[in-house]
């Protein structure tokens, strides 16, 4: 099912990726080629087949509820684009 330009732009908006009109047009062509490939999935009947999320169908392990991590706040913030007083700075979201 071919994607329209407005659909491409909507998906880019959902993905939080800025897209220009020129990029949207090129992307539309590529995505529609890829979806044509993906559509081959519809050729097989999967009624009654259980979806498989993991090769081994293992169950998620639980761990004890205790502190295991040391505080590495300063180390982790040393690579942040912008920090102040131990806080990550982002543009103001509340007036």
């Amino acid at each position, binding site marked *: 099912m071919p*994607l329209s330009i407005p659909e*491409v732009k909507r*998906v*880019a908006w*959902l*993905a*939080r*990726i*800025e*897209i220009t009109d020129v990029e949207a047009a090129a*992307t539309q062509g*590529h*995505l529609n*080629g*890829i*979806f*044509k*490939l*993906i*559509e*081959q*999935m*519809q*050729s*097989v009947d*999967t009624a009654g*087949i*259980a*979806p*498989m*999320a*993991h*090769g*081994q169908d*293992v169950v*998620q*392990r639980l*761990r004890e509820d205790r502190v295991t991590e040391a505080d*590495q706040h300063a*180390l*982790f913030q*040393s*690579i*942040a*684009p*912008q920090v102040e007083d131990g806080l*990550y700075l*982002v*543009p*103001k*979201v509340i007036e």
Partner: protein
Amino acid sequence: MFNSTLKQLSGLLAQKKLSSVELTQSYLERIGRLDPALNAFVTIDAAKSLVQARAADAQIAAGKAQPLTGIPVAHKDIFCAKGWRTTCGSKMLANFVSPYDAHVVERLNAAGAVLLGKTNMDEFAMGSSTETCYFGPVKNPWDHARVPGGSSGGSAAAVAARLAPAAIGTDTGGSIRQPAALTGICGLKPTYGVVSRYGMIAFASSLDQGGPMAKSAEDLALMLNAMAGFDARDSTSLERPPEDYTARIGLPLQGLRIGVPKEYFGEGLAGDVAAAVEGALAQFEKLGARRVAISLPNSGLSVPAYYVIAPAEASSNLSRFDGVRYGYRAPEYADLADMYRKSRAQGFGAEVKRRILIGTYVLSHGYYDAYYLKAQKIRRLIAQDFAEAYRQCDLILGPTAPSVAFALGAKAADPVQMYLIDIYTVAANLAGLPAMSIPCGFGEGGMPVGLQLAGNYFAEALMLQAAHQYQLATDWHLRQPPGTE
């Protein structure tokens, strides 16, 4: 020395004929001389490597050497290594210095290996040619006008050109095996869960698996011994007793049942690759193996299902790159949402954005059942095909890639053509099965051909045994690219 096996290097180090510092310096010198033409490495930090080499020499002097002590190993730049710039081939992480070690890196450090440098790769491991990297494409050492395969193309080119005795890579849809095939080296993707994903920058978490790349099956086994192991920090890591992957490599192959899937030898397979693989099958029969015709009826659906599942998981995993805590932030923006959109638009390359968009779309409201759920059901059909096949055979052999390495730029404009290169490799990822590639001859233009050996869950030792026995009888794995002698 540059053609030595890991065992031979370890012997030279043990006998004090060579120190790890000398060995590391020799490789660094060689990288300095040969890598400018290949672009296999993104980051070299001689001072850091030599600190590890000196520590390894001290361990050897103290009689505490392990099999990899003092051996330089190249790391795909997807593995976080503390204090090392770890870029994942992306502008997004071009200045990211990792504050911690991946589990695989911890294990290699504990094994005494020396981190020789970080290798180039397709951006976020999304590619089959190592052309989507922010730091420029990697060249195939056999022909600099061709691609080395991808996404672990830097690691593959480094081993092929003898710029590293061994390397580590990751394989989400063939990213270890396909570049190994295209550069004439060996590479192994373990059973999903055998190698921890902790600290391996995530692409598609239910498919990603780290593994070794080296010149021979025996070297792969030694590397895997160091890399594999349970890690509580990866929720999908499997708790199993430690296994010695070298344990059975010396055993003969009498009675081994080799499954040959008819679907892997049909339309789309180049004649030169088919001929080399046929030659390898004949060699295995000479070694006592028995050929069994099998069928993997749903294998044609593996690429379509993969290109739903992998982008879906990638779109979720890569949402963490928002310009807030680390990574690229756009210089100018109007508000928070604009900062996200511009940082991601400028920080990611075209292929990564394409996959995030596919993933976002297939997971969006109204499409989930038609795409993601459908793909997860096909994934089970593919796993069932293998389960059925392994009732009739012990290993499955076939081509790793449909052709030898292609020219740089030849498929870059058409994503679908690029995706179809992974036709023989993605099924193992979808099923979570182990698979490897070893050299088995040469094709068009004198380029190497890879043979894929795939096994049932946890069959790595058997695969390595078969590969090692083949390599005792053949010398394809000893050939090296012209100009690298």
